[in-house]
């Protein structure tokens, strides 16, 4: 598809400007953060510019600079999977935990929402419990789940799907009820059965809502997966953070952060793309 230069500029320029601003602030913070460390380790370095340059080349800096972080991430791409600094294997592990959590949590959330919109008593009895389930902080829940399931994929997926199901259930409940009452009367005039009403009216009307729930759930699942990995894992971005903090490899730590945010972005874009494919032909959003 051809993209006119102006459209491209309009879409890309604001993002690029904000990105540039973040990088500038980041460098300022790095220089400021490592200043004392440089002066302590190398008293021979004097003058503002010399010191500033040195703050960007520290091995284990308090605040790594953007280029150090990006360089570390780039070098991590082709390290062997047994090297804790490798990135693909960790991205893959955390990504799988997220993906399976999205799938299991999505299905569970949709099932619960379907149950609730068809039975008010069910909703009244169980919705408060669903809400209460999310008041437990994932930081408290994760070690309990890991201690039950051990250092397994299942344990991580339990944590991620636990976070996803809520986001999907809450938006799907609204979505399954979002169809025009007249559209329901139309179904009634056709003497449609509940199964037909669900698949031909409620479900398609709920789809955009379900995708919103999945997108919110994806970011929650990422955090959930990493937190769960902190409490016991062989691979995963959380495991890489544990390694980095143990050996005070701050650059590795920060590059893990960058990798995590890229993974989150990728998951979000993937869902947005799927939404565009599946929920086609809607009026342009205002």
């Amino acid at each position: 598809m051809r993209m006119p230069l102006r459209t491209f500029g309009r879409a890309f320029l604001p993002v690029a400007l904000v990105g540039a601003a973040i990088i500038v602030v980041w460098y300022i913070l790095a220089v400021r953060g490592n200043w004392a460390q440089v002066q302590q380790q190398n008293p021979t370095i004097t003058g503002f510019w010399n010191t500033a340059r040195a703050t960007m080349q520290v091995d284990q800096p308090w605040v790594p600079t953007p280029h150090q972080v990006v360089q570390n991430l780039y070098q991590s791409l082709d390290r062997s999977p047994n090297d804790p600094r490798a990135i693909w294997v960790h991205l893959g592990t955390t990504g799988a935990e997220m993906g399976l959590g999205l799938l299991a949590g999505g299905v569970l959330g949709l099932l619960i929402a379907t149950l609730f919109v068809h039975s008010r008593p069910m909703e009244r009895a169980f919705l408060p419990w669903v809400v209460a389930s999310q008041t437990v902080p994932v930081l408290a829940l994760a070690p309990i789940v890991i201690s039950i399931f051990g250092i397994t994929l299942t344990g991580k997926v339990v944590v991620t799907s636990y976070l996803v199901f809520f986001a999907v259930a809450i938006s799907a409940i609204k979505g399954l009820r979002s169809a025009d009452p007249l559209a329901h009367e139309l179904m009634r005039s056709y003497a449609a059965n509940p199964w037909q009403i669900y698949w031909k009216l409620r479900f398609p009307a709920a789809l955009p809502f379900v995708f919103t729930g999945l997108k919110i759930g994806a970011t929650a699942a990422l955090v959930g997966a990493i937190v769960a990995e902190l409490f016991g894992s062989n691979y995963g971005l959380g495991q890489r953070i544990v390694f980095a903090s143990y050996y005070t490899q701050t650059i590795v730590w920060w590059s893990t952060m960058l990798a995590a945010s890229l993974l989150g972005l990728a998951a979000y874009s993937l869902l947005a793309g799927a939404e565009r494919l599946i929920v086609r032909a809607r009026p342009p959003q205002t």
Partner: protein
Amino acid sequence: MKTPGVLRSAAPPEISIEHVSMTFAGQGRSTNALQDVSLSVRAGEFISLLGPSGCGKSTLLRLIGDLLRPSAGDLRVKGKTPTQARRDRDYGMVFQAPVLYEWRDVTRNVQLPLEIFGVPRGERDQRAANLLDLMGLREFAKSYPWQLSGGMQQRVAIARALSFQPSILLMDEPFGALDEMTRERLNMELLNLWRQTGSTIIFVTHSIPEAVFLSTRVVVMTPRPGKVERVIPIDLPQPRGAETREQPEFFRYLTECRACLREEHAL
């Protein structure tokens, strides 16, 4: 079986409404939407329910269509209860809003009832194509509802209602949201469809010219409580066309309906 000796008209009424009342229970007080309404409709008639808002004309339509149950009185459609008639798919419904499913294109919107009735794919496609031709929508077969004007959308809604060839069309101010020009054109199209299909039409409107132009009988209704003020047979020659609106009798009927509505309001 007809009982010998009892005098009956040759054909039983398509829709018979006897002493029907409808009360909506509200918080503390109830609203009397319809009071003691009786009406008999023969097969193939075009009946307009005409009146100001709050006169219960939509309520009466919804009672016939089994979207509501009457508080009192008896309602029969082809000798059956409205519920049975609905289950037998006797009703095609058209509302003021087109109520198209936005995730379906025009063709699939028209096919919606056919899918529900389990009509096979090939026949569904055939019937939808025929209807879209009939309604002048062929080039929009693959368009989505939001890409169509209001008049087009309402045409699709009518095609959808006709798709399963119901014997009774229930129309609740179907052209109420359209501009005057579009409305008059769709009125003509509706008359043509009515002639071709021979279906019975119950048509709710608050437009006097629309009611007079379309109907074989106009049921004038008045509010608080909703009741039938008068039933006016419209003896304008069929088939009707643009010239019908120029005839002196047409204006005489307009005046008659207007007077009938005004009488009630003077009270």
